[in-house]
């Protein structure tokens, strides 16, 4: 290691090889993923997020929601993700191809949101979500800065939240969601990836074994 230039060269080559193998290797495998066209349905999956939802993802990212929520469902038998009703199949790379900043997350202080727009028996309504964002709950922080409390002039706004109890504004005032709150909720309710791609089907061991016998 007395040879300085050789030492530096070795350092950089090692780092470049590792980066290329992991990052470029994965890119080579997944970089060309295309939407899956279903002949029966006559349309392709995943659908592009709506404009509102795409903007909502930026709000989700800048508030740091991913610090507590993941957006990845693991395969059956690996964790209780599907038993918890977070999705009917595991998440696959194709689910994320149209997302500008995928927020797969690494911490579950709260539930997974990968299929939040398809919760059973029925997904939460926009009003419930806005109320949660405005007032919070025991476990969820409130984000009142996403809302505007303003004096009612004339008729009250159709977008005003119907709040009761402590959270309700004083008489003559109304709470109106800001554009950011609206896009965030649109994003959350748009989170849904129901289509079962071939690669998302769980590998059934029995079938695999039988095929091995043939």
């Amino acid at each position: 290691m007395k040879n300085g230039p050789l030492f530096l060269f070795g350092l950089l080559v090692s780092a470049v090889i590792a980066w290329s193998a992991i990052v470029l290797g994965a890119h080579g495998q997944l970089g060309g993923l295309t939407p899956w066209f279903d002949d029966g349905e006559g349309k392709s999956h995943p659908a592009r997020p709506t404009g509102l939802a795409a903007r909502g993802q930026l709000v989700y990212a800048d508030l740091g929601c991913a610090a507590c929520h993941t957006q990845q469902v693991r395969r059956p038998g690996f964790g209780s993700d599907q038993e918890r009703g977070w999705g009917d199949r595991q998440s696959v790379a194709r689910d994320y191809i149209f997302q500008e900043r995928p927020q797969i997350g690494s911490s579950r202080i709260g539930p997974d949101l990968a299929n939040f727009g398809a919760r059973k028996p029925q997904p939460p309504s926009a009003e419930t979500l806005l109320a949660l964002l405005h007032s919070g709950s025991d476990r969820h922080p409130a984000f009142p800065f996403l809302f505007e409390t303003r004096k009612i002039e004339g008729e009250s706004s159709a977008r005003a939240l119907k709040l009761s109890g402590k959270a309700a504004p004083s008489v003559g005032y109304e709470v109106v969601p800001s554009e950011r709150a609206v896009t965030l909720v649109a994003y959350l309710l748009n989170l849904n990836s129901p289509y079962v791609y071939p690669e998302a089907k769980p590998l059934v061991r029995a079938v695999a074994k039988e095929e091995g016998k043939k």
Partner: protein
Amino acid sequence: MITSTIQPPPSDGDMVGLHARGPLLTAFGLAIGWLVASGVFSLIAAIQLHSAAFLADCEYLTHGRVRALAETSFVYGWAGGAGISAVVLILSRLGGNPLRAANWFGAGSVFWNLGIAAGLVGIATGDMTSFSLLQLPRYVQPLMVFASAAMGIAGLLAWSGRRRDGTFASHWYGVAGLVLLPWALTAAQVSLLWFPMRGVLQAVAAAWYTEAVIFLWLTPLSLACACYLAAKLVGRALPSYEAAPLAFWMLIVVGTWSAGRHLVGGPVPAWIPTMAVFSFSMLLYHFAVVGLNLRPVFGLSGSVGSALKFGVGSYLLYGAVAFLACFRGIALRTQFTHFASATEQLFLYGSVSMILFAALYFLVPQLLGRGWSSPALMSGHLAGATIGVVLSVVALGWAGISQGAVMLEPKTGFGEIASGVRPYLLVNTGAQLVLLASNLLLAVNFLRSLCSCCQGSGVSTALSEGSAS
């Protein structure tokens, strides 16, 4: 038993040079400032974990943003700032020449710290990138590359212009830490921020960068300090030294191949997490040799020696825990829980920070030409830091394990899980408070030492005496 002292040790070769004292001391001071700031953010984040409403209605301090603020100010501000400065100083001392390109170091350090300050404001106002360990907004990222490169140049010159022909482990690790950060940061920025890759590939590239920060930047920086301090405090060559080069190359070559351990079970190609198990088992050789090389530090006593001992021990423990958590069966129980924070805390605080504390207590007296103003504050700080790290790692680790076990039960709701781990999270808040308080002691001690040094007229005299002896 060897007792370490806070008196300046006998100098090897010339002093670093008067001209380099200002930039180095400033860099150390700012790093300590970021350490205190990150302590405040970590405390807020810890409180929010058990009391969700705390300060969350302040737009700048949502839990996600506070976490990013704490992580960024700790990793880049404290560990990066202090680590790079300590390594530059060590390389200069090992080289035996006054520090060259000190103005490059100074300018780089100023821009590094300005970049972090601007970045923190950006994160608080919603410009974070949402990639772990790369949260600084995109507009300050290029600045960080140039600033770290400018600081590193001084270290590289000290290394290439050394008087002795041979090199030591501190040389290899130090140079690697200085050179690889600008490269890794550039690669991450290009693939994530300037020309973002598609979909989950971003998660893969981000995981690679996380691993690069751990194994190509912070580990080399802290091991450079640890090897230097071990040789100085123990006073003889490190044992099993012939294995050290291979252990070094093992870290550099296979270190980042284990990036997939952050993505177990995720929507990424399955070979990526599998590769992590394979490469981390090769890394065990690196950890074993580091343990062998640095085993004399476990015989040290005294504050600096204990901090070093704790840091090296934490590093080895981190290797073992992180290796186990690579396996799918274990990751299933630890993934997405507080266990991951505990492991990160063990590495960042237990290992990197404690080694840097030891380095700071050893190196700053050489720059000041006199010892720290208060040995009591010093031992108070190190005792507090030790207690804080142990408490928070154990509390978060325990919380993570119990959280992981109940998460596997689909019937247990999140409210129940949260009440189950609440006691541990309260302990963690206490630990963060202890850490913050003890780091304030370090800041006070540093400022007092600086002031007493400036007031005493004998600074230059002390230094010239030092170089004469």
